[in-house]
């Protein structure tokens, strides 16, 4: 499975070349990878449906219990199949939708990388690797939402999505670490059986809150739902993939994944039901009030995500069955509908529902696929969406917590969604033909393949519900519930309460549909009034606050005078470190000057003189040069104590530093004024206190030894284990290579910082 995950990243690296070579057919060619992944995952179906669980393990950082391990059970297989199967059609679709776009190659790179991260996320058995993939999906989706980077709205929306999901990601990281610590393992498969330790600890409330923040931001739950509709600034293939079936479901996935371990906690079910229900209703209402096809779909996705959250929160067997069916149904019809929205936009030139009408003659295939997918969205028989909706009602009826509240919310949302489905299926395609910016015609096969196949599957699964049921859903439900049970899905359950609720929601939906066009104006006004109190206002306030405090602290601390920065930094260090040193260690001055050789005295004197010269000279170059002398004497000391590598490095670094300083100082104007007596005394005392601190610190460090030194280990292990006799180098590139890797990245960031600072300045002045 490692290779299944990595293959997406590897292909992503070569995607631009494939795109350049294959031109317009690149979508079809690149889609072979997700297709073969889908087949690969489908080959696990027999085993998984028998209830088996496959765990594969690759060691990554064993010292920190971080491994690349993969867990394939019903839940992750369902997700993996959705990701790879829908991904196949999305890539084909994208090749057609963005045909001739200058950045198509770049698009495929990010899209494939996103797909691979998503697969990694749902397959990870390790909390940390899951988190890494989680963040990768945030970053790649940021680049996908902002793909149209010349558009300011796209950039802003991308940044908003990034802030919200990555901010939540920080909370999630803390939550996952607490989870791993409390549960005694970072392996999810072990955590799920770790018993009550997770629930009884005093930290468990904090842990659950943090995990929930992570999941809620990612899955656009109220009050974080606002970023998802804004993310519609992305090209349609992105919305169809990320915002229907994959990225936004990541949070849902994690909730479902952790459900067996945390379901018993009171906070878990209470907050999932509550926030899910609010999200469900808010999403449904906003979907009803929007007129842009993509926004309508985005808000109805918010509604669906809320529904899924509620279902996990309810947690009864019925609810989990409903969860699995609704997840499958929603991914299929929503991806299809998004792609259809893209077809309409692409071929008719607008996606405003009030300006579309009568397209079914020009686009018969699109209209039919839209009708089937919308029927599934509305939850009408014989589509799979109907089964999911029946299961939802049954689940809501089975709960005890907030049951009346949930029932009302579910019914209202179902009515609104039915109305939306009717709007989407009917408004653009039937009625009188309206003039559109482009002469409408049927979309190309690449753009129709996805909607047609997914809509047909909705129909097929609806007519033969045992197919998904036996194939995967039973296994899915069993992997998220604490105890196993059997069930079967059916289209017809007889005359019962859920059916009655379905009929009521259908009638209500039809009524709302008629209300839709006539009252656009009123609904729009109401929504605008309400949005003044919406959480997005809070987001903007928060962002303004960040800018304000950054501005404030820049003005206070970084006022452009180098000397002030140094004083602030040094004095902070002196006070904090000095206090710790004196309170923990005390003041001990033990100097042994006995066995210092004559030439060592010479080196020391040289150092003192070079410093004294640097202090009193009025020439900047002179000061730099004498500091260079100081550096070289340090190198002498290194060499004297037989550390040639350090010595050479010191000499070279010193040389280059002097050169860099000269490059900078060369262009400074002459001193406009010299320091006053007060400034001299102030600077001298700052410098002397730092020097005293460092001296005391060094003496304390030599004096104190908490652990046995590990240099003996390096000396011994260097040649036999790392095949190198130069211990310094062996440590740098082998024993501690992760540190070195981090350091070269720091170097790179510093270099790019200097580069962009100077380039930006140059651009501004020109």
């Amino acid at each position, binding site marked *: 499975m490692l290779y299944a995950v990595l293959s997406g990243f590897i292909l992503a690296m070569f995607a631009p070349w494939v795109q350049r070579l294959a031109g317009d057919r690149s979508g079809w060619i690149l889609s072979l990878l997700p297709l073969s992944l889908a087949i690969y995952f489908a080959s696990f179906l027999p085993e998984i449906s028998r209830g088996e669980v496959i765990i594969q393990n*690759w*060691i*990554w*950082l*064993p*010292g920190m219990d971080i491994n*690349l391990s993969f867990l394939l059970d019903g839940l992750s297989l369902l997700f993996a199949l959705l990701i790879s199967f829908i991904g196949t059609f999305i890539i084909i679709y994208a090749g057609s939708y963005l045909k001739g776009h200058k950045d198509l190659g770049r698009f495929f790179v990010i899209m494939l990388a996103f797909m691979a991260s998503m697969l990694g996320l749902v397959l990870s058995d390790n909390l940390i690797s899951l988190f890494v993939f989680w963040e990768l999906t945030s970053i790649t989706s940021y680049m996908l939402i902002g793909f149209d980077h010349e558009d300011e709205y796209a950039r802003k929306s991308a940044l908003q999505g990034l802030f919200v999901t990555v901010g939540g990601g920080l909370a999630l990281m803390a939550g996952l670490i607490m989870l791993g610590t409390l549960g005694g393992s970072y392996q999810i498969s072990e955590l799920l059986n770790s018993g009550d330790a997770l629930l009884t600890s005093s930290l468990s409330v904090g842990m659950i809150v943090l995990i929930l923040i992570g999941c809620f931001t990612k899955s656009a739950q109220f009050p974080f739902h606002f970023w998802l509709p804004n993310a519609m600034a992305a090209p349609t293939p992105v919305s169809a993939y990320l915002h229907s079936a994959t990225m936004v479901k990541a949070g849902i996935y994690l909730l479902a994944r952790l459900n067996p371990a945390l379901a018993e906690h009171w906070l878990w079910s209470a907050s999932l039901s509550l926030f899910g229900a609010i999200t469900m209703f808010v999403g449904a209402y906003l979907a009803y009030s929007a007129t842009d096809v993509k926004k309508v779909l985005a808000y109805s996705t918010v509604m669906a995500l809320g529904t899924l959250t509620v279902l996990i929160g309810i947690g009864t067997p019925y609810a989990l069955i409903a969860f699995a069916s609704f997840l499958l149904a929603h991914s299929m019809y929503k991806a299809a509908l998004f792609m259809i929205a893209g077809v309409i936009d692409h071929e008719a030139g607008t996606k405003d529902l009030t300006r579309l009408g009568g397209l079914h003659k020009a686009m018969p295939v699109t209209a039919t696929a839209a009708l089937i997918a919308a029927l599934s969205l509305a939850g009408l028989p014989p589509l799979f969406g109907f089964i999911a909706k029946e299961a939802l009602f049954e689940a809501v009826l089975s709960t005890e917590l907030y049951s009346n509240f949930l029932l009302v919310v579910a019914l209202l949302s179902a009515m609104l969604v039915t109305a939306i489905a009717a709007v989407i299926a009917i408004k653009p395609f039937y009625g009188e033909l309206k003039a559109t910016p482009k002469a409408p015609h049927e979309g190309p096969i690449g753009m129709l393949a996805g909607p047609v196949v997914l809509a047909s599957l909705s129909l097929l699964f609806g007519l033969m519900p045992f197919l998904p049921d036996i194939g995967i859903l039973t296994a899915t439900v069993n992997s998220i519930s604490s105890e196993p049970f059997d069930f079967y899905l059916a289209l017809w359950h007889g005359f019962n309460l859920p059916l009655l609720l379905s009929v009521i929601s259908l009638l209500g939906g039809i009524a709302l549909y008629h209300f839709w066009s006539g009252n656009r104006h009123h609904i729009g006004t109401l929504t605008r009034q309400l949005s003044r109190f919406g959480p997005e206002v809070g987001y903007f306030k928060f962002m303004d606050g960040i800018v304000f405090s950054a501005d404030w602290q820049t003005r206070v601390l970084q006022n452009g005078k180098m000397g002030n920065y140094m004083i602030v930094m040094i004095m902070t260090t002196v006070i904090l470190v000095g206090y710790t040193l004196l309170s923990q260690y005390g003041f001990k001055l033990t100097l042994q000057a006995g066995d210092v050789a004559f030439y060592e005295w010479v080196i020391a004197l040289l150092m003192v003189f070079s410093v004294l010269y640097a202090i009193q000279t009025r020439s900047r170059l002179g000061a730099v040069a004498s500091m260079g002398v100081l550096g070289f004497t340090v190198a002498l000391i290194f060499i004297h104590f037989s550390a*040639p*590598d350090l010595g*050479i*490095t010191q000499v*070279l*670094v010193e*040389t*280059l530093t002097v*050169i*860099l300083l000269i*490059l*900078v100082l*060369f*262009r400074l104007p002459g001193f406009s004024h010299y320091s006053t007596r007060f400034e001299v005394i102030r600077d001298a005392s700052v410098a002397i206190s730092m020097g005293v601190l460092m001296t005391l610190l060094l003496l304390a460090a030599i004096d104190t030894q908490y652990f046995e030194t590990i240099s003996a280990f390096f000396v011994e292990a260097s040649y036999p284990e*790392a*095949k*190198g*006799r*130069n211990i*310094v*180098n*062996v440590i*740098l*590139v*082998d024993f501690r*290579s*992760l540190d*070195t*890797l981090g350091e*070269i*990245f720091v*170097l*790179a960031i*510093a*270099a*790019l910082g*200097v*580069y962009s600072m*100077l*380039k930006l*300045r*140059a651009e501004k002045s020109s």
Partner: protein
Amino acid sequence: MIEDNKKIMKTNTLILHTAALFLLPLQLIFSVFLLLRGHDEPGGGFIAGLVASAAFVLYLFAHGVPATRNILRVEPHDLLAIGLLLGLAAMFPGLLYGEPFLTAQWWEFTLAGSEIKLSTVLIFDIGVYFAVLGTILTIVMSLTEAEE
């Protein structure tokens, strides 16, 4: 256009001019020597990278930025990227052999009587070399160009 500008860093000293011309290849060869011997003797990617950057910086002082760009042929920040990619590339072979990532892998063989030790460690060290070289050249060149 740039060449007509006042060139702070370009001197007309004949000795420096000529010396830089000959010192550049020598210093570069020396840096490769340091890089390759680094695992057993003093040297290594970091030091070798510094020596190589010193070579180019000297050349830059004598001949100016455009001439240095000409002999460098790539943008300095591309060197930086190459270095980071090599550093990352050294992470994965261990993973494929089922060991923790960054675990060193060695491929030893004898060629014409002498023992050759190839390894991911060497790849990593070359990565460090390019990262250091790229960093310093990016900074120095940006600084010198900022004047023009």
